[in-house]
Structure formats: structure tokens, C-alpha cells
């Protein structure tokens, strides 16, 4: 068999000169402007910005829920045409199907894609224990706490083994304690699979703790102000947030945010 030509290392996600406008109440609103942005395979990329800066819009375009007004969105070597299981999403709200049990929520994807049960069953069992939900398989979402629901939301997409995991402020609606637990869980998951992640947040510490790169966005219309590489050693744990290197990075990011706030206020 002839050797196939080796493909150039393709990007997990790429936005080329992307603009997005909405019509809201009869008025045109520019959400993001001239975005050039890429996520490398196995990278944990965070996008950091104030609420309303268009960072969720950016993620929705990669997910295929929204189309750009101008420019191109690519993922895994193909233009994004619509939602696809290779680009799975964890939303800010758990968005579980309330009429399905935890187990049926997690197997929704594999069943829909006709994955044979003998393939997904062991994966589901492993995931349930990994996210600490053994014994809750037959519970309905209404019987779970906010943190548990979000874990189901994460298990539901990890079972698909997506090429790119999109997370839209996934811990934003959780209390501070639960958020820390979830961040550690996500770090653990990342160590295990080196899962490519695009993570949207407004929490500076969360972005620095989790990500390999943090892209700071401007206020609306959102642009990428600066991309910072987070060269903190892995595996990481929560105590990293007290290290000098972490605080140095945090100062840098906060300075960027302050600068941006002043610029926005001056306009």
C-alpha cells in the first residue's frame, strides 16, 4: 500500500477575519469585529472577556449555531456548516433533557449516532465514576444539584470523544466552592486525554489555571486584544493559583483588562 502524503498539522479551530452583526430590536449590533484566532490540536485555549463582549458569539460560530456575517470559520480541517458532534458544547446552563435520566442523557449522543452499546457502555461506566456520578445513573436531572447537573453535561459530551470541546462559561452559574471542584475535575480530564478545548470565561484565575493560552477580548464590538501563553507546569492543581508565576501572569492580564476598560470609557 502506498504511503499517504502526510497532511500538514491542521488546526482544531480557526477563525479568519470573522465579523458578526446581529439585528436586535431593529438596530444593527456589531458583536465581534475582525477576529483572527486559532486553536491548535491538544491545546486548552481560553477566551477571556467582560460580559457582552461577544465571546459566546465567537464560540457559537465555532459550534455552528451562528454563522459569521463576514469571514470564515474552520474546524478540524473543514469549514463549519452547522452543529456537529466533533465540536461538542458544554453550555453555561446544564441544558440536560429533563425527561431523560442521567444515563439516558449521557447515552443520547452515542445512541443518536448509532454507536453499538458494547462500544459506549464501558465508556459511560468509566465516565460516570470519573465525574463522581456512580449511583446516580437512574436519577432525573431535577433530582441533582447544580454541580452534578453540570458534570452530567460534561460526561454527555466526553462520551462522544469530540475532537474539539467547546465550553461556554460552564461553571459560571455554580457557587464558588463547586466551581473549584469542577475546575479540578476538568484539569484531571485534560491530563488524561489532552482534550482540545476552547473555553470561554470572564474569570481571570479560572482562565490562567486551566488554559495553555488566554486570549483577552476587548469590549463590544469584541476583538482579540492580546493572546498570552500560559507557561505554567502541568499537571496543575488549585494550589497553583498562589504561586508567584501565576500571580505575575494574573497581574499582566489584569493590566490588559484595566487598559481596555479605560479605553472603552474614553470612547
Amino acid at each position, binding site marked *: 500500500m502506498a504511503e499517504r502524503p502526510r497532511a500538514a498539522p491542521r488546526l482544531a479551530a480557526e477563525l479568519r477575519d470573522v465579523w458578526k452583526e446581529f439585528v436586535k430590536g431593529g438596530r444593527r449590533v456589531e458583536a465581534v469585529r475582525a477576529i483572527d484566532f486559532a486553536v491548535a490540536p491538544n491545546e486548552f485555549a481560553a477566551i477571556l472577556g467582560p460580559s457582552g463582549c461577544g465571546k459566546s458569539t465567537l464560540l457559537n460560530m465555532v459550534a455552528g449555531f451562528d454563522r459569521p456575517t463576514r469571514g470564515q470559520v474552520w474546524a478540524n480541517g473543514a469549514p463549519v456548516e452547522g452543529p456537529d458532534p466533533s465540536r461538542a458544547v458544554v453550555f453555561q446552563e446544564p*441544558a440536560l433533557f429533563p*425527561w431523560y435520566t442521567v444515563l439516558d442523557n449521557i447515552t443520547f*449522543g452515542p445512541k443518536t449516532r448509532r454507536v453499538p452499546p458494547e462500544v459506549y457502555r464501558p465508556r459511560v461506566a468509566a465516565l460516570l465514576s470519573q465525574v463522581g456520578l456512580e449511583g446516580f445513573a437512574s436519577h*432525573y436531572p*431535577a433530582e441533582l444539584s447544580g454541580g452534578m447537573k453540570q458534570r452530567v453535561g460534561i460526561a454527555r*459530551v466526553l462520551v462522544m470523544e469530540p475532537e474539539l470541546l467547546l465550553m461556554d462559561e460552564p461553571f459560571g452559574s455554580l457557587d464558588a466552592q463547586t466551581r473549584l471542584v469542577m475546575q479540578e475535575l476538568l484539569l484531571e480530564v485534560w491530563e488524561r486525554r489532552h482534550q482540545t478545548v476552547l473555553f470561554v470565561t470572564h474569570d481571570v484565575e479560572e482562565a490562567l489555571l486551566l488554559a495553555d493560552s488566554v486570549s483577552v477580548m476587548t469590549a463590544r464590538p469584541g476583538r482579540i486584544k492580546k493572546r498570552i501563553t500560559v507557561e505554567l507546569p502541568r499537571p496543575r492543581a488549585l494550589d497553583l493559583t498562589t504561586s508567584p508565576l501565576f500571580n505575575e501572569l494574573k497581574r499582566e492580564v489584569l493590566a490588559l483588562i484595566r487598559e481596555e476598560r479605560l479605553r472603552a470609557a474614553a470612547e
Partner: protein
Amino acid sequence: MSRRGPWFILLPLLLLGLWHVAVTRQWVMPGIIPAPAQVAESWQRWIFGKPGLSLSPYSGTWVANVVYSARRVFEGFVIAAGVGIPLGLFIGWNRLVARIVDPSVQLLRPVPITAWLPFSIAVFGIYDAGALFLIALGAFYPIVVNTTHGVRDTNLLLLRAARMLGAGEPTVLRKVVLPSALPSIFTGLRLGVGVAWTAVIVAEMIAVKSGLGYVLWDAYYVGRMDICVATMFSVGLLGFVSDRIILGAGHLFLRWRVLEAHG
């Protein structure tokens, strides 16, 4: 008495007592309104009496008439649900279907089913088909409107979740939209069965010669108000029972929703 005691029995007993006193003291026109005891006795004979042997032509015919009416309600209701639920799903889901079908539904809906009576008799004659047409039409509107409403109320986030998990439109419709609309659909079914009982009485009073509606009108003509009142109670009871059946089926399908309400 405990707070969960049989308090619901209090008001009916009070009303029954008031009715009894009003008749025996002749507060209302004497001889027109029968006393509760008289209604109870006639009703009992209507149910358990031997047909043909008694002086009353109604003796022992209750079950047969109930079966006539209940069967019509059931058949009409099944037709209404069979057309109304799928149509409601499509109107709610597809903008093109909504634009083509919905205006006609909304225009026809204000026409009361009683206004359809002459049309129904002209087309179907005084047969079962006419009654079924009225019942199905009456029950159809609340079912289709509530189903449409339920579909349109589906959470956008759940639709996005299903799509990013790989679901195509048929799967989204079956696994997300339908279960999400189910509470609304059951509301429509409950309203629909109520209209169905209204429609069956109207249809039987005029368009067919059997069932509780026919007995009601017939008894009125021959001055048997006791039978009229017993019929009213019968219809009320049957309406209540059919509502409970649908409610029970709803609880069976909507276990997750019960959990949500208490959670």
C-alpha cells in the same frame, strides 16, 4: 379533623341540603324541579330497573345510553387527537406549514360547534358520523392549539444540545420537541375531552336518536325533569372520570415533570 380530611364533601352536602329545602318548602316553582331524593330514586331505577317490565320507558337503559355516548366521545376524541397532535407538531415546528395551515385553523376556530349542527346533519344525516364529526371538530381545536404552543415553547438551548450531539431533525422532533411539548399536549387533551362531552350532548339532542343527550331532550319533552337532572349528573360524572383518566396517563408519561415540581 385533619387538614387533609374529606373537606371536599362539605360544599356538595350543603348544596344538596339547600336544593332539598328549596324544593320541599316550594321556594321554586312546585312540580317543575324534582327533589334530590326523587332524582336519586329515578336514577337508581334508570340504572338497575328491568327494561320493559316497568312503567317507565327509561327503566334499565342507563348503561346502554352511557355506552352510546362514551363510545362516541372516545371515537371522536381519538380522531381529534390523531389529527390534532401531529398537525400541531408540524405547525409549531415548520414555518411553512404554519403559514399555510395556521390561519385557516384560527379562522375556523371561533365558529362554535353548535353552529356546525345544521351543516353536519345536512352532510352526514342523523347517523353516528354526524355526531363524530362534531365531537372530533370540537376536541380538535384545543388539542392542535396547545400542541402548537408546546412545540414553540421548546427551549432553544435543548435544541442546540441535541443538534451538537448529532441529532437530525426527525430525532430532534421525537426526542426533544415531543417530550418538551407533552405537558401542553396533555393540557390540550384535557380541554379537548371536555369539549367532546359538550359536543356529544348537543349532537345527540338533535342529530342522533340514542345516548345521554337524546335521553336528556326526550325526558324534557315528556316532562321527566327527574331524568333530566339524573342525566346532567351522569354526564358530569363521565366528564370527570375521562378527565381523571387523561390526568393519570399524563402523570405516567410526565414523571420527570412531577419531580421538577417538587424538586
